[in-house]
């Protein structure tokens, strides 16, 4: 039972990490109707800048600030230089261009930082673990990720539902030409939304840097999961992204944790192990297939 609670926490933590990434992606997708494969690159930029600043100064706060700033700046530049010209084109052109951006960013990080992965430690204040229940020690830093995920979810909710900017974002998502006709500078709105998405991805990168390997190409491994999340949640819906992320996090973690034991009731151990390994890596895609069968446009279609 204690193990189950711990695994649920692990699932939630992975879920919130995915949420940070998918919130930005789904906003960009929903508002701008743009498929951005290079979203993972902003995640990588966040992680690299954070690791570098942390190594140079030792201050996590400074690392966080500079990383957020550079991720948002990268996003803004990419939007102005490349993506602005692609809104009218079909999705295939966008996929091609943003795939090119992935290669560009990966090679650029290799040129700047070299092929060697970078090191970043957990900030001093969040090192170590706490006993959340007697007998269940849990790393403090992972709890921090859950907390930050909750904060960001709350912040986005306020931003989108209760501010003028949020109103425009929602309006832009449902009818962009009408919004433009009403005198909203849609270009500026798009750049802002894109930079916000990049900033959130960079945030995820900073949070991930002490836990995961900071290396060129780190964005792609998590990008696929992120796309699964926004497809499940409903493209363009932040609420959907939150729910989708938590679902994916939980299903993935619990699948990896408990499938081998469950299958051992049915098969001999070696067979159970190999089936469980395959099933666990398929679990989220099965989840996606089932959800799409009943809700073809995701849980919360925008």
């Amino acid at each position, binding site marked *: 039972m204690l193990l189950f609670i711990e695994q649920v926490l692990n699932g939630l933590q*992975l879920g919130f990490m995915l949420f940070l990434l998918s919130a930005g992606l789904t906003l960009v997708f929903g508002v701008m109707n743009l498929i951005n494969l290079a979203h993972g690159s902003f995640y990588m930029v966040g992680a690299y800048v954070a690791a570098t600043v942390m190594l140079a100064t030792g201050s996590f706060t400074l690392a966080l600030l500079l990383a957020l700033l550079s991720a948002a700046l990268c996003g803004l530049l990419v939007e102005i230089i490349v993506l602005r010209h692609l809104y009218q084109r079909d999705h295939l052109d966008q996929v091609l261009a943003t795939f090119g951006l992935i290669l560009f960013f990966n090679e650029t990080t290799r040129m700047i930082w070299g092929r060697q992965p970078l090191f970043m430690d957990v900030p001093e204040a969040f090192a170590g673990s706490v006993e959340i229940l007697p007998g269940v020690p849990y790393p403090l830093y992972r709890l921090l990720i859950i907390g930050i995920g909750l904060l960001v979810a709350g912040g986005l909710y306020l931003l989108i539902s209760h501010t003028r900017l949020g109103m425009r974002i929602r309006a832009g998502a449902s009818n962009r030409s009408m919004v433009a006709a009403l005198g909203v500078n849609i270009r500026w709105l798009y750049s802002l939304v894109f930079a916000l998405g990049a900033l959130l991805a960079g945030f995820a990168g900073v949070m991930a840097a002490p836990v995961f*390997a900071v290396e060129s*190409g780190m964005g792609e491994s998590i990008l696929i999961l992120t796309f699964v999340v926004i497809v499940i949640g409903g493209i363009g819906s932040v609420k959907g992204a939150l729910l989708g992320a938590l679902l994916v996090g939980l299903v993935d973690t619990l699948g*990896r*944790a408990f499938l081998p034991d469950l299958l051992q009731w049915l098969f001999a151990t070696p067979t159970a192990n190999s089936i469980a390994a395959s099933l666990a890596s398929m679990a989220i895609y099965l989840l996606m297939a089932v959800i799409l069968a009943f809700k073809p446009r995701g849980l919360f279609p925008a």
Partner: protein
Amino acid sequence: MMNFKLISSSLVALCVFFMAPASAAVKIGMVTTLTTKAGYLGEDIRDGFNLAIEQGGGKLGGIEVELMVEDDGRKPGKGREIAERYIKSDKVKIMTGIVFSNVAMAVVPKVVKDDVFYISPNAGPSALAGKRCHQNYFNAAWQNDNLHEVMGKYVSDAGFKSAYILAPNYPAGKDALAGFKRFYTGNIAGEVYTKLGQSDYAAELANLRAAKPDAVFFFLPGGMGINFLKQYAQAGLNDSIPVFGPAFSFDARLLKAVGDAAVGVINGSQWNHDLDNPANQTFVAAFQQKYGRMPTLYASQGYDTANLIGSALQATGGKPENMTAFRAALQKAEFDSVRGNFRFGNNHHPVQDIYVREVVKDASGIYNKTVQKVFTNHADAYAAECKL
């Protein structure tokens, strides 16, 4: 205008034709992985190889050589394409360089059938060591299982009664755990196959803690290993359950990215920078001087491969076309390996000593210290299946 173009281009062609030096250099084709996350492996193999050429003043074994390097991007198809180009247009007779077993399986069987020598500086898939071994194929590094076998032996000998073992769910991962189990006599507390490229190991770590093993063995190459070790330490597990692995997660470059989380880990390797032999001391010093970083085991393998080829070039007067003689010279392995003791078994795979090292930290940084020799003259488990 048309005429002018034609004339000028033929002039250029003529110039090129006549100016090309009638080079007698022996061409060596290197197919390796220089891009993707694993690009540093190929980089180190290439740099180690180049160092040996440079030490010979552009020569290996006194014979002038020309090293051609191309990146396979970790893709079997691309590796094959490059190999075909080397053989058809460059008329290469010696090839080397491949990092990954899946690329090797796509390239090597074809290459050796075309009467080209392939000397592996890294990948050592079991198929090429056993039933499908070939007279033109040599492996100067290890058979894939070796560095896992040594850990199995060490963990049993050190008295750990139960072990929890993990590897990614792909052929090399399964081979790794099979290699470990071949020499581990204790009880397997859990055998887990993770997703290839997985970054989050929280679920596995929680299960591992609950299984209460005496030791943990893992094979998670590249970034996966960094993720695992960091998270293992963050979960507070490295105070209670010691972790073991093959050298692949503990080379000088990865250690910098893992940091303190790796300190104290025992890992198995056929080479370390502190092995006490003159060839190794020269190599480590020269590599550091030239490239400004510590060599990894991959660099040592690239260097050994170059010197092995050099020994055969010397014996045959730079004539790999003379295949029987060249093959016999390779088989003798008369070069000063940085590993010290080195010879080839019947299947053209190394028979060598394998060590365990411990990751230590002091004022000079984090590095590996050789602890003890575990295997002496260790051959691989597939040699008997090879009919050479």
